[in-house]
């Protein structure tokens, strides 16, 4: 009976995973391994993967995307850590719920609408450049869109909640008496953060960083809309291969490389910080 219940309960997630994730990926894998020789004639080889390393634009875009994503992750962490601390340890109770809901509210609106909102604020004829002219900071309205910094801001903004939730979880379990004990033994604020708070919150920090890094790396909308044609985001390259160039084979190969390389980077980061993926996910 229990076995039957378990089987029934497991059917939806298995169908979900199988039909929507595994099956398309199998097809993508098959696609990525073939090369179109002429109309209707295909050969199976690794040429699509080779071109990632031979055509510098792919590799350069990937490296740029990875570095920008890592930077966005670090920035998100630096901003979210004090926010989580304030929500859990300083606001407490009702105040904490209010603050958390305030962080959550923007995510009720679709990402496209929110990004378009940023565009209204930042474009040359937009709210902020006009305001800067009005108060005399700049003589002419300046274009605030289409900079790397704008992309960065957009990435941090869209990722914030995904960093905040695991951090709040991690900090909530930190016993206040540990902090008091550390003070009592002569520690100052900096020492407490370094020796007590960060080690305790490390699984939460790692989980948040993994999620945010993956989201940034795979984000298409924010870099494209806020960065314009010069955003040079790796997902944009994949999109171009599929849609503009109609080269599905190359697009599939790039998609798979994105998956492999991001997994590899996270594995290296976990190894360097001495943690295990299952522990991190369980404790976060």
């Amino acid at each position, binding site marked *: 009976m229990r076995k039957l219940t378990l089987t029934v309960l497991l059917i939806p997630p298995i169908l979900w995973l199988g039909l929507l994730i595994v099956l398309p990926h199998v097809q993508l894998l098959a696609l990525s391994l073939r090369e179109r020789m002429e109309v209707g004639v295909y050969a199976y080889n690794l040429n699509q993967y080779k071109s990632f390393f031979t055509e510098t634009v792919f590799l350069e875009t990937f490296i740029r995307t990875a570095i920008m994503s890592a930077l966005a992750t670090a920035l998100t962490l630096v901003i979210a850590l004090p926010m989580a601390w304030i929500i859990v340890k300083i606001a407490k109770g009702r105040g904490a719920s209010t603050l958390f809901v305030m962080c959550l509210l923007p995510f009720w609106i679709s990402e496209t609408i929110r990004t378009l909102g940023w565009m209204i604020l930042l474009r040359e004829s937009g709210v902020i450049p006009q305001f800067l002219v009005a108060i005399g900071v700049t003589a002419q309205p300046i274009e605030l869109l289409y900079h790397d910094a704008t992309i960065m801001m957009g990435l941090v903004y869209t990722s914030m909640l995904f960093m905040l939730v695991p951090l709040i979880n991690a900090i909530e379990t930190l016993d206040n008496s540990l902090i*008091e004990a550390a003070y*009592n*033994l002569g520690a100052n604020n900096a020492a407490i953060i370094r020796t007590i708070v960060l080690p*305790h919150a490390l699984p939460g920090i790692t989980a948040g960083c993994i999620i945010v890094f993956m989201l940034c790396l795979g984000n298409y909308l924010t870099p494209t809309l806020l960065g314009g044609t010069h955003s040079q985001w790796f997902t944009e390259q994949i999109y171009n291969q599929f849609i503009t160039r109609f080269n599905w084979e190359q697009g599939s190969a790039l998609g798979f490389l994105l998956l492999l390389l991001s997994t590899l980077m996270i594995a290296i980061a976990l190894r360097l910080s001495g943690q295990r993926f299952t522990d991190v996910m369980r404790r976060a």
Partner: protein
Amino acid sequence: MHTLDLETHQLVKRFGSHAAVQGVDLSIERGQFFSILGPSGCGKTTLLRLIAGFIQPDEGRLIIGGKDMRGIGPNQRPATMVFQQLALFPMMNVGENVAYGLARRGISKKERVAKAEAMLARVGLPNVFSKGVDQLSGGQRQRVAIARSLVLEPTLLLLDEPLGALDIKLREHMKVELKKLQSELGTTFIYITHDQSEALVLSDQVGVMNQGQFEQIGTPQQLYYSPATPFVAGFVGSNNRFEARVSGRRDSLVTVSTSEGFRFDSVSPKNLHVGAAVEAFVRPEAIQLIRATAATEHSPRAKILSVLFDGANSTILVKELQTGLELRVALPQTGVFADLKAGDVICFSIDPLQTICL
């Protein structure tokens, strides 16, 4: 004149309109084991947190080791604390826990390790330096927490009901260990507890606290034999308490009559006049049992309601036959009255010198 390690003058701490600590004057001499005893909510934890510096007093002065603590943060005070739940750092091993305070003082790693190891050996825990905190038993963790605080050689060691979480056997054992450790080190210990047995066994001086103030400060013997207030008489040790009136005076003795109408002789530190309302306290061991066959005509007789056997601490509940007064009486430890059972009739007498009217 002894050196005072802790002095407080009219210390006040309010939370909203409620004064948790109201005007506490306290002086504790160097090397004493001082306990603050009181029921939960009496303000003893607030007082300890004021001393540690986690909260600031609204009024009054706090002096540790001759130095005024105003404006000095909890990380600068020469008072370390053993927390109720111990608060050992789970992200560090035992040795790192003990060496934590030394590291914050910037002491070299080599010296830290040597000092921490010496302190661990002192509390009876050699060879646990590199173990994880969760690998230790409850009693061992207790010792690690004490070692972590003592390694800084504080002027005051504050202990916040540290034995509360242990089982009873271990608690008895740790009581002896704590007392021994304190007398060896000579550090001033301030120990807060709601358990009067812990306070009496461990302390040189005990302060009984109630509603934010000290009711009485004295040696365990003074508190037990000469309680200054009804609260102390009722809280320290077990006691029979009666509402009574003074019905006569003879030399140093007063005769009191309880609301049930039972009369007995008692003593009082107060100058009571006839008719005054008092609270009379009779210790269970101040009542002597006499077999009905051996008793004189005048001795009061009572029926046994129940026998509460607890080894050497056994007592019986009796009801005096004439007035219906209920009393708790200690059974002699020799076991001569081991045959008593509920329903038996027994005679008793009360030693006036072991009773008190307040």
